[in-house]
């Protein structure tokens, strides 16, 4: 039904008389959003099936008048425009798709009355316990009651009593009295998590959300139900009663759990992170993330956090430690173990450092575990693609550093620079490590840091800024959410200082490194850190497409067959 005069295949719909061009099949809620109008809704979620049960999105709908016999438009003599046939009854916007000439009234008296009615109904059996509810501040019930409600109650009967403080699973708590029965959580479990464990029991106003007998909501995506719950019915056991959401500072970040590169929001207050929630990116993670990814911030305040510079175990200043590292690197017989968890900028400077100290062999440690086909891929390093793109490595990393072990045994390597890798987990024995001098840049204590000659504490992903390249070869930015331990430098600064001691001066910030990246890495030409969109940018990956990557299919990723097996 597209208009041939307008080749973009869009159709015109009219929201409160204002024309907006949308794709055919766009529903009224999305069409109104494009026109800058809000149609309030509870049960509708753009990534889930449409059920139309909350009735909050009722609007008035009209179609251009057509003569039923001649099929000709019926014109209005006064205005010269085609007449509109308004439907006598309100229509739900979520289940009505745009057709050419569709008319929507989002704030007529009838629509306002419908919303007031639905708001009143939703609140009559709601406990109104906002002062003790975790959802307060980000609660659709609060927001729409303020925006579209009557502001007073006519309800004098006793409210329904339903179960409270129900443990649905290890991470999700349910308060049935707050539940508005929108069924978003049920649909999420069925359609996205494929773990159909939630359902309603009882009828009518006594309907109650519950888990099937003998089951629990324990899948690794269970906390998404908390995110999409429009009210305070589902809450996170971890975040519950910890912090009022309006105090939280939100920082855009990227999940480092795997090479999917889930877009996240890190919520913190006064240097403490309280939770991680997914950030919508329709090309990467839609609006979801794994539960395991949400726990990663706990590494920030972990007991074994490395926060002191040390030389042979004795505390020194940062500059002393860096100077000692530089001396060791200059002495020759060096090997470098980079990391797929470093940012693109860090990997690039590490490569520059390698070049400055005579191109020693560079290794990377791979982390491969089974993927879940959704948002956790098999490659548990978030940025192996970055190491390839920056040229730090040319082949895919291996899990065991057998070649490095052999080089140690043969005496070819006397110094190892390890960037946040526990070498004892990568196939090197403690005895082997004792034969060499280890410079360890890391965030946490481990077996390698204990043996290390030089310990250089660095910052976690939540405490620094940079970019990762995910499995799709999408460059994505993450930002510093919290400051990190006092006096601890980030990896980029440490590498910058080491480069400076080798006679190269770079501005060791993402903004400072990106001009170099754009100039020296063809795939990143023309890009800059500040102009990189929050949803990331795909780069030309043709150089690296032939490599046999370990990832299988995930939500938005289809593995390309390596060239060797495709033939």
């Amino acid at each position: 039904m597209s208009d041939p005069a307008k080749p973009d295949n869009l159709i015109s719909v009219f929201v409160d008389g204002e024309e907006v061009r949308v794709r055919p099949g766009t529903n009224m809620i999305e069409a109104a959003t494009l026109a800058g109008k809000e149609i309030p809704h509870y049960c509708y979620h753009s990534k889930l099936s449409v059920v139309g049960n909350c009735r909050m999105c009722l609007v008035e709908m009209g179609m251009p008048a057509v003569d039923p016999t001649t099929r000709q438009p019926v014109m209005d003599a006064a205005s010269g425009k085609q007449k509109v046939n308004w439907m006598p009854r309100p229509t739900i916007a979520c289940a009505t798709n745009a057709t050419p000439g569709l008319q929507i009234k989002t704030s007529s008296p009838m629509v306002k009355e419908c919303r007031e009615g639905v708001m009143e109904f939703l609140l009559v059996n709601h406990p109104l316990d906002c002062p003790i509810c975790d959802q307060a501040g980000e609660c659709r019930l609060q927001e729409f009651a303020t925006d579209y409600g009557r502001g007073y109650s006519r309800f004098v009967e006793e409210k329904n009593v339903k179960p409270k403080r129900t443990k649905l699973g290890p991470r999700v708590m349910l308060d049935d009295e707050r539940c508005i029965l929108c069924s978003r959580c049920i649909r999420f479990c069925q359609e996205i998590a494929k773990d159909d464990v939630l359902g309603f029991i009882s009828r009518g106003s006594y309907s109650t959300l519950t888990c099937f007998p003998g089951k629990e909501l324990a899948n690794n995506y269970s906390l998404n139900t908390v995110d999409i719950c429009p009210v305070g019915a589902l809450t996170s056991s971890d975040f519950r009663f910890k912090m009022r959401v309006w105090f939280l500072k939100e920082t855009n970040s990227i999940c480092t759990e795997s090479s999917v590169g889930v877009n996240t929001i890190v919520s913190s207050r006064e240097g403490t992170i309280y939770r991680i929630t997914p950030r919508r990116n329709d090309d990467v993670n839609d609006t979801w993330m794994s539960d395991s990814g949400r726990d990663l911030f706990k590494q920030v305040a972990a007991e074994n956090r490395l926060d002191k510079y040390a030389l042979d175990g004795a505390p020194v200043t940062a500059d002393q430690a860096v100077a000692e590292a530089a001396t060791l690197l200059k002495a020759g017989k060096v090997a470098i173990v980079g990391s797929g968890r470093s940012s693109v900028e860090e990997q690039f400077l590490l490569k520059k450092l390698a070049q400055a100290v005579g191109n020693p062999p560079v290794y990377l440690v791979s982390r491969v575990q089974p993927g879940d086909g959704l948002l956790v891929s098999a490659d548990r390093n978030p940025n192996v693609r970055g190491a390839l793109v920056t040229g730090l490595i040319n082949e895919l990393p291996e899990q065991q550093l057998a070649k490095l072990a052999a080089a140690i045994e043969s005496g070819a390597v006397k110094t190892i620079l390890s960037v946040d890798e526990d070498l004892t987990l990568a196939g090197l024995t403690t005895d082997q490590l004792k034969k060499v001098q280890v410079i360890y840049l890391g965030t946490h204590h481990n077996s390698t840091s204990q043996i290390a000659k030089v310990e250089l504490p660095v910052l976690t992903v939540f405490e620094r800024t940079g970019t990762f390249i995910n499995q799709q070869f999408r460059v994505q930015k993450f930002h510093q959410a919290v400051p990190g331990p006092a006096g601890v430098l980030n990896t980029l600064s440490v590498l910058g200082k080491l480069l400076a001691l080798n006679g190269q001066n770079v501005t060791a910030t993402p903004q400072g490194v990106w001009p170099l990246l754009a100039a020296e890495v063809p795939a990143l030409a023309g890009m800059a850190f500040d102009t990189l969109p929050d949803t990331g940018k795909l780069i030309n990956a043709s150089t690296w497409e032939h490599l046999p990557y370990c990832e299988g299919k995930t939500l938005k990723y289809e593995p390309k067959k390596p060239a060797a097996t495709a033939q």
Partner: protein
Amino acid sequence: MPITEHRVILKYADQPGYTNTIDCYLQHGGYEALKKAVAMKPEEVGKEVEVSGLRGRGGAGFPAGMKWKFLDRKSGKPIYLICNADESEPGTFKDRQIMHKDPHQLIEGMMITAWAIQAKLAIIYIREEMPFAAKILKRAIEEARAKNFLGNNILGTTYSCEIIVHRGAAAYICGEETGLIESLEGKRPYPRIKPPYFPAALGLYMCPTIVNNVETLCHVKHIITMGGAEYAKTGVPNNTGTRIWCVSGHVQRPGYYEFECGKITLGQMIYDVCGGLHPGRALKAIIPGGSSAKVLRADERFKGKLRDGTEYNWSVNDIPLDFDSPAACGTMSGSGGIMVMDDSVDIVEVLANLNAFYAHESCGQCTPCREGSLWMKKISSRMTSGHARPEDADLLKNVADQIAGRTICAFGEACAWPTQSFLAKFKDEFVAKADNKPRKELRLI
């Protein structure tokens, strides 16, 4: 003047000696219509039903022939026929009689319909509270299968179709056709949103499906026997055929009575057929089409113009019993359940009772009906327990107004119409409840 029934569906049902076995049915000309139908082309059968003007007997009165025409035959998916035997509208008890006393008539009607729409499978969805009917139907199906009226290669044709009896789990909402389909699929009977889930296109298992009421399907048999045009001569134009009316309440002879549509008035039904009210009582109100229909007040008059232009000025007793006339009076013939109330009833009690039913049966899927039905119940039962407030009458009416027309299925209207009509017609009695009564201290919560 005594009025005699015009029985078609229940012609033999109550005759002495008539049993629900296949032998008895065959002796009375049974399955001849099916033989006639399978000799016709399926579309010819559909055409006869269309010509007959048969309207659905389940409640909405939608033309059955038109419903069949909506069927999506191009999808290539199997077509299903469902017999809606979830008769649970308060005041309605006609389908039960058919299934108990003449099950083969239903089976024959279903097989003719199945042939007409070329259904792959036919299902009788029967309400849980009718265990005997389910048992009778199952036995009747076995009998019919033994005689090759259903099953493989029916009556020597290449067409095969089975009938399955599926018992519900006692929920009024399963009478709503999409709720019924969800229930058949093994889910909660949440009615589906329409569009897009019209059963004729996306019904059972997302396949084209026809859902017809028990009585409607029985009429199909008689349409084939008589021929559509001949059938259309019974009743009145646009309201063809006979209909079984279920009369309950304060009449001398409550029961089920079959008449031609439009050939008898409400007054005749109450006074001539059912023997009138109990001695010394006066008529107060009538609910003419099952509990969801809007109530009629005994002293109301209805003026207007019919479709053919004739003007009418009816009292309640003058309303012809068909589909269109009750609709012209602002109510509906619905499922044919006529509930008569004399002046002994407390109208607020009646509404409280109805509201309790709807609050209990609301499926809980969409907000207005889920919360509104229980709220209305709570208000009306409070009013009957001596705690009415003067403002309750308006509040009750307004709550109902917030439900009707805003829900996924017709249950919204079904639960709002009684309250709306009771308040519109008997408001003084609701207001009177609040007068001079000790009142519980109420505060807003």
